């Protein structure tokens, strides 16, 4: 769970950086999208690197979701009789946020691939260039809203997940280490939410070059 989660974190940060290319202008963004398909050439065939990434992510997602659902089911079996009263805190919140938020992320990933990768869902017209699809979609306020909700769910998932991954890997060895781990988790979550949401809002408000 920790390893697959950290693979996602690496992917997420790279993806976010890629999205910010839109601020270099639409040509730069299309160049980047094209370059992704050429990476590793001529050692790898056209889109070879891209497919390696995709396969890695799909395998990681299956393992990650399998582990998550196993833990979820185990928790249910471990406490059939619920409490009449439960004080709400970090743990109660994130127990739900990781699970339902994780399911929401899974649905979002499907939607997201149908939207930008396969061009099956067209929000504001049909365009060939990736940058045109990006800009035209985020001129629609409800598209921005869908992405905002998904990215907020992702931020919560990372805020607890990065701390959890560090725990699983045995990195929390002292109270100081624990404080640092929480700081890193919050920082990555905030950077991710801001980094992903700046392009859509900039497009919505007409601020992109």
């Amino acid at each position: 769970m920790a390893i697959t989660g950290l693979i996602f974190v690496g992917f997420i940060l790279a993806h976010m950086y890629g999205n910010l290319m839109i601020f270099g202008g639409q040509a730069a963004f299309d160049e980047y999208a094209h370059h992704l398909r050429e990476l590793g050439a001529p050692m790898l065939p056209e889109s070879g690197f891209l497919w390696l990434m995709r396969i890695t992510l799909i395998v990681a997602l299956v393992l990650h979701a399998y582990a998550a659902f196993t833990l979820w089911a185990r928790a249910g079996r471990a406490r059939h009789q619920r409490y009449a009263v439960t004080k709400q805190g970090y743990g109660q919140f994130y127990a739900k946020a990781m699970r339902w938020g994780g399911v929401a992320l899974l649905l979002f990933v499907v939607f997201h691939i149908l939207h930008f990768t396969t061009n099956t869902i067209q929000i504001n017209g049909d365009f060939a260039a990736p940058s045109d699809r990006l800009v035209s979609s985020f001129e629609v306020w409800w598209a921005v809203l869908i992405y905002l909700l998904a990215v907020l769910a992702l931020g919560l998932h990372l805020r607890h997940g990065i701390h959890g991954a560090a725990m699983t890997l045995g990195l929390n060895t002292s109270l100081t280490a624990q404080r640092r781990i929480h700081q890193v988790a919050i920082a990555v979550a905030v950077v991710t939410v801001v980094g992903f949401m700046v392009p859509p809002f900039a497009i919505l408000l007409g601020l992109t070059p």
Partner: protein
Amino acid sequence: MKVTLKIWRQDGPQDEGRMQTYALESVSEDMSFLEMLDVLNEELTARGEEPVAFDSDCREGICGMCGLVINGEAHGPERTTTCQLHMRSFKDGDEITIEPWRADAFPVIRDLVVDRSAFDRIVAAGGYISVNTGAAPDAHATPVPKENADRAFMAAECISCGACVAACPNASAMLFTGSKVTHLGELPQGQPERYARVLQMVDQHDAEGFGGCTNLGECSNACPKGIPLNVISQLNRDLNAAHRHR
């Protein structure tokens, strides 16, 4: 002060159980929580009703027998054991809900009393060291660096009360198991069985039907001894090493 108590009543392991409400007048705020329940039980006995069954032994916060979930918090609103909680932590007129530890691995025996022998079996699976019997060795025969000794003592503070399980949204007992693994793993005497210990204790933990840890930290927040979450990370570290050693 006056309080309204909502208490879980269950006649035996097979009984369905239900919440029952009792009003208690003239509670002193200097009473401990268990003394308040003693007063209730005296009243119930005088009325010819069955007293509420609850566990306690030392009543000084060291034996770990007295766990109750009070208003949704293991051991109530203060960081201490239920026996060391006082009624001054509540207000006049408060409604107080009292439930037993809830986990399938801790079956209810009666009312608020649960069977925590699953913990004994986890300890039996690996919470020991091998030493020659006979005369006790000199206290300084085996030097222990202060850092390790401090951490071992910190983990050894665990009184096996089960609040970690009660508070965990997954009903996991990893704080308990991690504290045993850390306690023995920090000391030279614990090294021979170090990696076998963590594997056996975790296997037993899972076999008892406790949930899996998702690092939520409610265990450590509820622990009357303030055992930190890092004992679980230590357990994971030893577990990863144990898989490599095999």
